[in-house]
């Protein structure tokens, strides 16, 4: 009991983002009672869902009884603030959200939308998961991923470096080295 009071003093936010897409399967998976209970058990206190063009409405909750506090919105011009305040990010596979989250050094679970026709974004998430920069899930395996997750095992994403590419372009165009 005491433990729980200490835990709820500090906000531990799970931020879910689907970008500009529609990804009801993910929002529905997040909204399940078992998953929310699991997040609570892991010490998370707040759940904020950016649901894009989705039509499935997750249940809001103030979290009075010590359960997870849940809120949602459709879009915002910048999710940078939400990402920054999050302790865990659950995102669609868009490269923009992925790199914005990794750059902030936040633990990330990417959930792939299997309803998309051209699902090349799966490739990027899988590759980054293989390199241990993020966790990779499908809507139906998300619960299991959260139960098994060990965020300590994730590796920070290295600083991007455009200079090798820029050097080749300069060389081709005959610019002198400096």
């Amino acid at each position, binding site marked *: 009991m005491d433990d729980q009071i200490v835990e709820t003093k500090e906000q531990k936010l799970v931020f879910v983002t689907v970008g500009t897409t529609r990804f009801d399967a993910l929002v529905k998976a997040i909204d399940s009672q078992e998953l929310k209970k699991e997040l609570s058990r892991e010490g998370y206190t707040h759940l904020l869902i950016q649901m894009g063009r989705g039509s499935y409405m997750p249940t809001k909750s103030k979290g009075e009884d010590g359960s997870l506090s849940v809120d949602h919105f459709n879009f915002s011009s910048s999710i940078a603030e939400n990402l920054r305040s999050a302790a865990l990010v659950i995102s669609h596979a868009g*490269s923009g959200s992925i*790199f914005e989250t990794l750059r902030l050094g936040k633990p990330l679970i990417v959930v792939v939308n299997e309803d998309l026709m051209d699902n090349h974004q799966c*490739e*990027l998430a899988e590759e980054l998961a293989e390199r241990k920069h993020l966790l990779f899930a499908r809507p139906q395996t998300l619960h299991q991923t959260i139960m098994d997750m060990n965020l300590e095992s994730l590796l920070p994403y290295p600083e*991007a470096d455009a200079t090798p*590419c820029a050097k080749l*372009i*300069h*060389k*081709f165009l005959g610019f002198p080295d400096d």
Partner: protein
Amino acid sequence: MASFSFLLALFIIAITTFIIRAFYVILQSGKPLERTDAKPLSTLVVLGSGGHTAEMLNLLSALHKERLMPRFYVAAATDSMSLIKARVLENSLNEKSGVPVGETARFIQIYRSREVGQSYMTSTGTTLIAIAHAFLIMIGLRPHVILCNGPGTCIPLCIIAFLFKVLGIRWSSIFYIESIARVKRLSLSGFLLYKLRIADQFFVQWPQLQRKYPRAQYVGCLM
């Protein structure tokens, strides 16, 4: 009758010349420029939503801006964010150099042949409009350098640039950088520009793609 065969002969000669010239251009493409002057090169930068713009602006920040100017930024008319982001970059450069943005950069919107989700049937008309618009833009700009990384709008622009090379209107260097989101397979834009050998230099961000497409160069991650 005689004039008909004369016209036919003329036509065949023109086509043959065009094909020979096209092969010559393909052979010459991919060879580094040999330049004696240090004049800056006008540069077309193709932007696009879905991560393309962010990657392109990252690359741009590592490039010699004072040698690559003026810069013409092109984005789809429906994509307002990309040009805003490019403006932010240009404004910050301008603060450092003191040169007004209007002298070093221009921002151009282009019609897109097909919006995400639009059917292929209705897209024939819009495609023709988009190609015509791309032509008008390219005739006006005639850039020396083209940088693109995969949005669909780069295909007509690069094909027109290639035609300009064949016709002797403008020799340009076309750089294609495949998006970081492509790990195992090229995008349609990348595939076309690689196979048609339109891109002078073709860059990929994952080693497994380079192994599959040996003429590509692996440059590591831009994001």
